[in-house]
Every structure is written in C-alpha cells, then in structure tokens.
C-alpha cells in the first residue's frame, strides 16, 4: 500500500494546461526523485499536493494512507503529514530558530507562550538531527544552508510522514549537502517518504529508489533508479522534436560585436559564493548565441553583470567592436550599444501603470525625445512605428501597459530596447508566460534582427527555443561553461547532459 498516491492530476491556468493527467505514488521510506525541464510541471504538482492550489482548482485525486484527501489550504496538507520545503526560504529572519520551528504552533497556555518548553523541544529536535544550531539565535543570522536545515527540522517537528524537497541543495555548500543527505538517509530509515525535486542528476542517482520524469505536464516515465541511467533519464526529459515554428535561418556572421572575458559574479547574499565563475564568450554581428542552463545556473546573473546591473560583486573584461570598454552602469552599457530585454517583465521591464509610450521610450529617451526637454509628438511618432512593426495590439500609444496581455507587454519591453538602436541585444527569457502566437512573432523578430546584423544573446529555459533560434549555444552549469555547440551538433540530449553537469 503506497503512503501517497496522486491520481490523474490535471491543473489548468488560463491558456495553459500545466499538468495533464499526472500520477505519482510514494511508499513509506522511499526516496522518489522528480525530474524534468524548467516548466515541466514539477513545482505545480507539489503546489497541488500541499494545498497551495486548493481542492477544486484542479482535477484528480490525492490519497494518503489509501484515504482520499481534500486540501483547502496548506494547513490541511500539514495535518495529513505532508511537509514541503520550497525553493524560496520561508523562515522569518527576525525570529529565532526556535520561534520559527514552532511558528503558529507555540506551546502555550491561555495564549501565553511557554518559552522554556518551546526551546527545550527545539533543542531536542535539532540534536536528533545532529544539527549544531542554537535555537535561540535569529534565523537570519544563519547561512542559507543552515536555514534550509532549520526548515527541515521545522517540517519534522510537525511529524511529517511525507517530505517534499524542491531543489534543496541549490544554495548549499558541499559539506552542507553531505549533512543534508545524512539527515535524509536517517529519515528514510524512520519510514518517511520523500519526494525530491532536483536538476542535479548525480544527486538524484545517489539517493533515489525511483525516478519519475515529467515533461510538458505529463508523466513520461517512472523508473527504478537501479534499472536506469543518466542517458535514459535525459532522453526522457527532452524527448520532443523541435517543431517547425522555428524556420531554420542561417545568419551570415560578421565581425565580433561583443566579447566578455573571465566574468565572475558573486552572490549578493552569501559572501564568497560564485554564481558565475570565469565565463568568457564572444558574439558576432548577425549571430544568435544561445545560453542554455537550468534554473540557478547563473545565466541571468551573467547578463546582469555585463550590464553592470548585478547587485553582487562582479568582475569582467568587456570589448565592444574589438575595443575594451568600461561599463559601470546600465547607461554606460546602453551608450555602448547594448540592449537588455530583462526577464520578469512586471518586475524589471515595465512600469505597469504608465502608458505604452512612457514605457517604450524610457531607455532611449534622450535619443528619441530630447536631451533635456521632451517632445511628446516625436515620441508618439517613434512608438507608433515600433508598435506597428512589432504588431503590438493596443488602441493607441497612450494605452496603459498594465492592461495589456503578456505577449503585448513583452513586445513593449522588446520595443523599448529596439528604440535604443542597439548593436548587441540580450534577451532573457523573452517568451516566458506568453501565448504561442506572440512567441512566434517574437521568434520571427529575433531572426529578422539577426539578419540585419544585430548580435543577439538569448537566454531561455525552453530548450526547443534555444535550439531552434541559436547559431551557437553555450551551456552553463553551476556558473561554469560545461558545453559549447554549433547549431549543427547541438542536440537536446547533449545540451541537457551539459546542463545537468554530465558532460
């Protein structure tokens, strides 16, 4: 009898079927890994399991100990013995470790907290896990890795029978990873069932009893770890053909437009942690360079650092058109002809309450309008032209950006940067969360720009996108280049192998 069974889970978002009939079983004491590309549906599945998406917002059935469960929220799933440790830490940094562990369940009488019992229990719990952490220190004073371990202690204090770990080692040092695996090994012996989401296949194979592969919201395969191997898993992860939405275009390449040497970027939060480690690359005029890699591989940090917009420390050498340049601020980058269509348009790209014109002219304002005084009519004229060529569907340049669809918003961000007249364009996740039609239009635009001689650096988590558009691909894994392929020799399997560190 399985400890947990998820049957035929279907979860739809507007326009997307994120989960399409996923089934999964977990036995007591089993270590079950869940792997797949970014966007395959792993996190969504776990949000269904934990009640973040409550009963009724998805189809399918969840059984724990053979009884059907209906979770209306996280509380319900916790009561059923399910604990989830999400990628983003959820500790309250200003509270102590002990307070965090018992947050919302403080041992108390008549509303008065029994502090000595709380800390006594916290100490015992941490000792059981062999964690040398003082429950009286503030959670925020611990390193990210230790905080992660506290989260696990918190989950166990709730007598979790089912523990879900979403990329728990992403921020850990090697010795912390060892501590974590020691704890997980212990839990396995105690009969706790674990679902482990990771991009790191070596970890997956080290610990797992079984491995389930998700792709495009479907269960592709469930293998016993002993009967399978890395190649088989990678093949199952990528498994799809690059469709013909990518017209194969060969771009004629010119001189080197941008070259970056020995770029190293450090974490802004963890002292000394390198997110990008000595990466060098060059991109030629008319070339589309794809940068592939999984979440946390350092791709956005790489682009942000070139643009002098990375919050943490970063060092690098940059040459534009063969001459060394100093880029100390985004405006230096813009002056040197670099444009940057940033990821997460709502956070980094747009001012949602402002109009299309105000957004699209922002980066190139001095060029499009005037150095000191603005000229609205001139701006409207430039924007009207860009809206037409990018096919932005809105009534007028005065429409508020926030009222538009994701695809149109993305085109505004693209337009903003095209209006700076760049010779090198960075695109970070340019089609995240937009519909297929808008995607194709953006692909066509990228190909058109390359044909006109623009150098393009494309970061995307969607492998088909990188393979379909790029003339050349470099692959990052944990901040280092682990592979470089031309369009001809790039295959999904090779890129995925490099991205998971198996090269």
């Amino acid at each position, binding site marked *: 009898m399985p400890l947990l069974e998820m049957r035929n889970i279907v979860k739809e978002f507007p326009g997307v079927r994120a989960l399409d009939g996923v089934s999964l079983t977990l036995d007591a004491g089993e270590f079950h890994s869940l792997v797949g590309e970014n966007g395959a549906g792993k996190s969504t599945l776990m949000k269904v399991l934990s009640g973040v998406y409550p009963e009724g917002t998805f189809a399918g059935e969840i059984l724990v100990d053979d009884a059907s469960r209906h979770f209306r929220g996280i509380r319900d799933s916790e009561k059923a013995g399910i604990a989830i440790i999400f990628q983003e830490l959820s500790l309250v940094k200003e509270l102590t470790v002990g307070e965090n562990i018992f947050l919302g369940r403080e041992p108390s009488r008549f509303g008065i907290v029994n502090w000595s019992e709380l800390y006594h229990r916290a100490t015992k719990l941490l000792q059981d896990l062999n964690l040398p952490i003082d429950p009286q220190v503030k959670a925020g004073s611990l390193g990210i890795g230790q905080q992660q371990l506290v989260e696990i202690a918190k989950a166990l204090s709730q007598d979790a029978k089912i523990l879900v770990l979403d990329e728990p080692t992403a921020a850990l040092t090697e010795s912390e990873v060892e501590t974590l695996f020691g704890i997980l090994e212990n839990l396995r012996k105690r009969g706790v069932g674990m679902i482990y989401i990771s991009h790191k296949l070596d970890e997956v194979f080290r610990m797992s009893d079984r491995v389930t592969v998700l792709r495009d919201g479907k269960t592709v395969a469930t293998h016993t770890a002993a009967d399978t191997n890395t190649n088989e898993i990678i093949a199952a992860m990528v498994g799809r053909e690059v469709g013909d939405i990518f017209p194969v275009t060969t771009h004629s390449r010119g001189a080197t437009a941008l070259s970056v040497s020995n770029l190293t970027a450090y974490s802004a939060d963890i002292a000394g942690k390198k997110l990008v480690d000595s990466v060098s690359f060059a991109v030629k005029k008319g070339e589309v360079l794809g940068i592939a890699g999984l979440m946390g591989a350092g791709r956005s940090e790489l682009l942000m650092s070139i643009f002098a917009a990375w919050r943490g420390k970063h060092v690098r050498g940059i040459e534009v058109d063969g001459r060394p340049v100093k880029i100390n601020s985004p405006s230096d980058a813009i002056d040197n002809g670099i444009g940057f269509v940033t990821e997460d348009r709502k956070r980094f790209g747009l001012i949602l309450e*402002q109009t299309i014109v105000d957004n699209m002219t922002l980066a190139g304002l001095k060029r499009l309008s005037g150095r000191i005084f603005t000229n609205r009519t001139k701006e409207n004229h430039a924007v009207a032209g860009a809206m037409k060529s990018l096919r932005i569907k809105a009534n007028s340049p005065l429409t508020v950006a926030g*009222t538009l669809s994701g695809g149109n918003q993305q085109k505004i961000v693209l337009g903003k940067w095209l209006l700076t007249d760049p010779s090198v364009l960075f695109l970070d996740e340019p089609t995240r969360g937009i519909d297929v039609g808008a995607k194709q239009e953006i692909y066509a635009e990228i190909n058109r720009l390359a044909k006109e001689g623009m150098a393009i650096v494309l970061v995307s988590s969607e492998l088909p996108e990188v393979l379909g558009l790029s003339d050349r691909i470099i692959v990052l894994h944990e901040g280092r280049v682990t592979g470089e392929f031309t369009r001809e020799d790039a295959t999904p399997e090779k890129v995925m192998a490099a991205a998971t560190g198996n090269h």
Partner: protein
Amino acid sequence: MEEAKTSRINATALRAYIMLAVLGLIWIYFHWATPGNTFLTARNLSNLMTQMSVTGIIAVGMLMVIVSGNIDLSVGSVVGFAGGIAAFLMTTWGFGLPVAIIAAILVGVAVGVFQGSLTAYLNIPAFIVTLGGLLAWRGAVKWLLGGNTIPVADETFKAIGNANIPATVGWVLAGIAVLAVIYSAYRRANSVQQYGLGEANYKGELLKAIIPAGAVIAFIAVMNAWQGVPVPVLIMLAVALLGAFLTNSTVFGRYLYAIGGNPDAARLSGINDKRNILKVYALLGALTGVASLIFTARVGSAAPDAGVLKELDAIAACVIGGASLMGGRGTIFGACLGALIMASLDNGMSLLNVRDFMQDIIKGSILVAAVGLDMAGRKQT
C-alpha cells in the same frame, strides 16, 4: 481594451473636475455662510491666495519628491532655519537684501543635497532622514535666534511678502500668458502634422486653449479689483509653472515618474536613480528657501517657530491632489489645487470664527476622507 483606455484617461480628467467641483462647493458654502457674504470678494480671494503661497510653493517641490517615491518631513523646519538665517544676515550682520535672498535659497539647497545624499547614496530611508531633519533644523533655528524673534525692518524685503504689482503690469503679464497659451496650442497642432500623426487641428486646439486663457484673464481681473496681484502669489504661480514644465516636458520629470513607478525597471533602463533623487531634493530645498523668504517677509520677523507643520500642509496638499505616497503618480496641478482647498478651508473657517481646535479636527478628517474616497474610486476601475 478600448474601455480600459478611455476609462483611464477619463479617470485622470474626471479627478480634476471633481476636485474643481469640490473647491467650488467649498467656496459657495463659505460665501453663503459668512456674515455679510465676504468670502467671494476680491479682497478675500486676494488674501486667500497670499495665504496659500508658502504652502503652494513647497507643495510643488514636495510633489516631485513624492512622485519619485520619497518624502520630506523637514521642510517646515527648513522654512524656519533658512528664514532665520536671512533675517540674521540682514539685521545682526548688516548684509544687504540680495545676500540674504541668495543665502536663504542656498541653505535650502544645501539641506536638500545633504538629506538627499543620505537617502540616495547611504540608503537611509527618506522618512527617517527627514524626520531627523525636522528635529535638527528646528533646533538649529532656536539656537541661531537664541529663542528670540528677530524683526526685519527692510521695507524692500517686506515687499516680497506684502506688496502687490500694479494693475497695468498685471494686464501685461496676462497678455503674455494668453499669447503663450495660444502659441503652444498652435505648436501642438503643428507638430501632429509634422510627424505624420494626422492633420493639424488648429480649431480644436484653439478651442481647448479658451479655458486656460479665460482663467488667466479672470484671475487678473479679480486681483486687480482689489490691490493688484500680490507678489507672493506671483512667485507661487511662477514656481507652479516651472514645476508643471519640469514634470511634463523634461527628461528629468519623466525619470522621476519612472523611478517612483518601478525603481528596478528605471535603473535597468539606464536611469541614474540616485542622482535624480539628489536633484529633486535639491530642488525642493531651493523652493523651501524661496518659501522661507516669503514667510519671513509676510510676518516681518524671523521666529523660532516659523514654519511649524508646513511639511504636513504641503504633503496633505499633494495627497488631496491625487499623489500616491508609493510614488509614480501625482500632478503639479493637483498639488496646487490641494493647497488651494486647504487654504480655502483655513480662510473660510477663520471667517466663520470656527475655534482653532475644531479647524484642526475638520482639516484632519477631510484629508483622510479625501484619500479614502480616492482609494475607493481606484478599486472600482
């Protein structure tokens, strides 16, 4: 999408109309309620405008600081401090008027640059920096003046706060203003054609120019019906025009809205947010210096408590005028209208002999109610 667009444009315009209507109602009520119907007379309107000038000038600078997502709580104390220095220079040290004027404005700028750099470059929250300034600059005035009131005898200086310009000069200025309104309407119509966005609509633009032109003429007529346009009102109008121009028609103004609307997006678009925040604080400082001169000149002396609570009047004017304390939203026109509404309440309630504690309670309630209605209106759209 059609609806979304039209409703937004209407919402901004609608807001201005509602505020004008509210102002009209307040005026009509006070006129009806005051004994002898004295509120809407040329003399009282002239007084009213003079009374709002200090707050109005500060509100213009404050609006820009608020749009950039910041705040300045220290301006009331800086009015006292800069005014105190001006008075001190003229009386105790015997400097002339120009030195005093320049000194007051420079003091304002220096305070603005200092507090602005603490906020922008050292990342100390603006609320804290300027709360500290509120206390510290007030302390500085008391120290400077030794707790005494320093009378200023210079008649030219007093004229800054109390004189009126001759009627003919008023009409000349009105003529210039009307010509400027017509010329800008003509240019707007022209540039549409120039960039191929459609036919030049001279008639439509000129029709739109009738309202501002009419307002200018009516204003001068009313002011001249008493003693002519008061000098502080003229200065306030000049400052408001400058502020409107900066926010609407300069790169600096656009950057302020961008920084307040989404600091991350602004920074990644190449905007130096720190430098612009420093600039906007310096500008507010300069305007506070100007306001301090008018304040001191009107009273005829520098006092240790000069300008107390002026920061709250200015912030209230901006907020009543539709500015968001989160940044990214607000207009100079709204802030000036807000200042006029606040001044009208002060003036009208004084004419009605409302006790001062009651005045405070009413003003406080109106501030909260105005923002409450605004939020409720926003939620619907």
